[in-house]
């Protein structure tokens, strides 16, 4: 019995370790293959910025996938929202602060509404999510082409571009890093104390502190690497898109691990009948998770548009597949009920590392696609084999 439990717990942890190891191998390989350019602060900073849009969407996508659904429309919705932002900021010719407020609010409001609409069609009208969002994939792409009249709309506003191109500076980086470390230690302390508070035994503060060391080292390393990147002799610090991704990922982890809503998503995806009979309103929760993915797609659209400095009719094409691939490589099951935010983010990093590394080596475009596609299928294939054995 005891062994049974241990092997189960370890299986989840083992998965995470294997993925981190795979990422390590990929990084070391590219570092070697690029004669030492891959693992430099400059390239890692770029890599993290490149993955931020996919990562933000992947966090929302993961929750949709966990609930047993899918969203194929996010790339087109991202394009449409970016177009709306550009329309508000540039085309309407409003004065400075209003223009940005209108653009940002319009983008987020519309993506949330699209999420609610598509979620409603899926949950309340029983149209399969695949079909609803496949329709969305086409329709919202059409909408952005119409909105931008087929042209690219440039955005010159520097304040807005800061969302996608800015850096927060090394000082603020260290401040946020320190806050994060305090928070991690606080969580560990609270976890240990609750054991005592509920009379389940003695609090193991030492063990808790030990557990906190790995994330603390991670935070320090991350801030240090990002702060080591200098442009024209200035140390710029953590890129704004990366900071947004970290915030979104933390929110996603909190929702999935520590809220009733998150637990309901896993229950619905794990066994929709059992969830319904346990008094869960499956439909309402599915609607909510689509609205949430919508909001995150809106955030991703702002980052993407600001980074490009313009809204284009083809913005975000194939982003849905990147996000889904990130979730699946990270161990999420398309049948629902299984997957973690941590895994999805790791998946996104792995995908971005492949893009970045192959780009640096000079692998031809078509070859990159073939390799990425093969790796996606192989990763899930190996995962399935591993599951069957256990």
């Amino acid at each position, binding site marked *: 019995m005891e062994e049974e439990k241990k092997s189960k717990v370890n299986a989840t942890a083992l998965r995470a370790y294997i993925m981190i190891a795979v990422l390590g191998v990929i990084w070391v390989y590219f570092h070697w293959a690029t004669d030492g350019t891959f693992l430099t602060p400059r390239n890692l900073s770029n890599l993290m910025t490149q993955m931020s849009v996919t990562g933000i969407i992947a966090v929302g996508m993961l929750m949709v996938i966990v609930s047993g659904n899918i969203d194929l429309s996010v790339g087109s919705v991202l394009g449409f929202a970016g177009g709306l932002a550009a329309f508000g900021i540039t085309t309407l010719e409003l004065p400075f602060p209003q223009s940005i407020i209108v653009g940002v609010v319009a983008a987020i409001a519309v993506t949330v509404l699209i999420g609610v609409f598509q979620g409603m069609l899926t949950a309340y009208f029983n149209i399969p999510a695949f079909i609803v969002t496949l329709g969305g994939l086409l329709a919202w792409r059409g909408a952005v082409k119409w909105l931008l009249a087929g042209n690219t709309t440039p955005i010159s506003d520097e304040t807005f571009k800061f969302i996608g191109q800015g850096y927060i500076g090394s000082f603020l980086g260290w401040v946020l890093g320190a806050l994060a470390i305090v928070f991690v230690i606080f969580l560990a302390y609270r976890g240990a104390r609750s054991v005592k508070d509920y009379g389940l035994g003695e609090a193991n503060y030492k063990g808790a502190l030990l557990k906190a060391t790995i994330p603390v080292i991670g935070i320090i390393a991350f801030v240090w690497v990002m702060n080591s990147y200098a442009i024209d002799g200035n140390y710029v610090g953590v890129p704004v898109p990366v900071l947004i991704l970290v915030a979104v990922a933390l929110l996603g982890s909190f929702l999935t691990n520590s809220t009733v809503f998150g637990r309901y998503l896993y229950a619905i995806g*794990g*066994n929709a009948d059992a969830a*319904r009979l346990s008094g869960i309103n499956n439909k309402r929760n599915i609607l909510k998770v689509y609205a949430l993915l919508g909001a995150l797609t809106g955030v991703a659209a702002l980052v993407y548009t600001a980074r490009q400095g313009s809204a284009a009719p083809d913005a975000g094409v194939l982003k849905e597949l990147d996000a889904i691939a990130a979730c699946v490589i990270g161990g999420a099951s398309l049948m629902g009920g299984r997957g973690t935010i941590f895994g999805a983010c790791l998946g996104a990093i792995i995908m971005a590392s492949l893009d970045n590394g192959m780009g640096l080596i000079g692998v031809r475009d078509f070859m990159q696609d073939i390799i990425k596609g093969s790796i996606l299928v192989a990763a899930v294939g190996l995962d399935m084999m591993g599951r069957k054995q256990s």
Partner: protein
Amino acid sequence: MPLLEMRNIVKEFPGVRALDGVSFTLEAGEFHSLVGENGAGKSTLMKVLSGVYPAGTFDGEILVNGSQKNFSGIRDSENAGIAIIFQELSLVKELTVGENIFLGREPSRFGVINWSELYHRASKLLQDLHLPIDPRTPVGNLGIGQQQLVEIAKALSQDARILVLDEPTAALTESEVETLFNILKKLKSRGVGMIYISHKLDEVFAISDRITVLRDGQTVVTHAASETTKDSVIAAMVGREVGDIFPEVTHEHGDIALSVKNLNVYSPDAPEKKLVDDVSFEVRRGEVLGIAGLMGAGRSELLTAIFGAWPGKFSREIEVDEKPVAVNSPSDAIANGIGFVTEDRKRYGLILEQTILDNMTLAALRAISGRIVTNRTREAIAAESQITNLRVKASSPLMVANTLSGGNQQKVVLGKWLLTNPRVLFLDEPTRGIDVGAKQEIYAEINKLAKDGLAIVMVSSELPEVLGLSDRVIVLQEGRVTGEFTRDEATAEKVMAAATGHK
């Protein structure tokens, strides 16, 4: 020489001997009925006959026309002239009648189907049976009764000499039953042997030449229909003694906890068909109300509809603690103190990939853990309390549900509902498929809960269980109440007679 002979069939599943030396014969042109309680082994025997359980997975011999057969699959048994029409029809609803009849055996050349020959042969077959059905109609457009007849036509197109009918009349109207019987009589005169499985004894006696009673995987008796009576068949069906695993307890009954009036439940597929027809009952604090009936009598539908979880149409008035309440969804039911330990724990009760803890706290998550943010420690304490209370054999609340035995899984589902602090608890098949030890523990728990003042409504297919635990038994047949007995009045014979519609 009999058309079919099954000798000493023994079929074992892990932990259970489903068939324990059953022998059975069928003559050409004979109508032989197979009756028995739920779980007596009828379906298992037919699966052995049809090759669903291939030769080698059971002991014993099957002889068709005196020659021994080893079926390794359904194809083999079909080739030997055996056709089985299962309760759940195996027709493809989107395809036409003709396509279904010849599915997998389409008249064709080089893989190209000869449609005119297919439909010509199909319509000849249907005419032969006097079925006014166009072979080009999609099967989904036909009523259940006609679909059944198409299934029979399909069997005959394969030159079936042995036809097995598993509860063929369960979904049919009276006139459809009459049509079916006329056709069966015609087939009989052509020398087709028929094995007929049914719970409806009136039908069984109306049409059978011989009747065989199965009980606990054994042949109890085979009689010519003319030489036996319904009463003796019922006696043979239930003949087992109610063991002493049911402690003699008397429950103190309090006020009325739940009252249900005029419950009607309609089929989600056929909205005009009533699955539960105007049932009213009440149950008091500390009382165990048993609901008995045979498969398809509407027992689970009754509980599901009261709980607000029935997918089709339903109507009823509900009072909890003598106050009218509106229950439109499972969450309403839970809020009003109704808990529902559903049947089929793997399908409806558990999230198999999640832990005991996650499963146990699911139905009362907001109350146990927090309205918005969860607290794992509080959840662990709640789950741990039920693990101890119900003696779930698990090393930790973090064990994954699908690694547990059936009995422990059942306890997890029960624990989940006890954590909602119910005033009324529904139990649907609470001991299906679990071992005797776990059964006894669950019986003891049910008695303890009743003693603590919980009102319990229990559906069970196991008659001894219903009789051993219930203070009162309501019997359903085809959605209607056909009997109500107190603990002292209830006997297996009376309940079975009410359940089979025999007065």
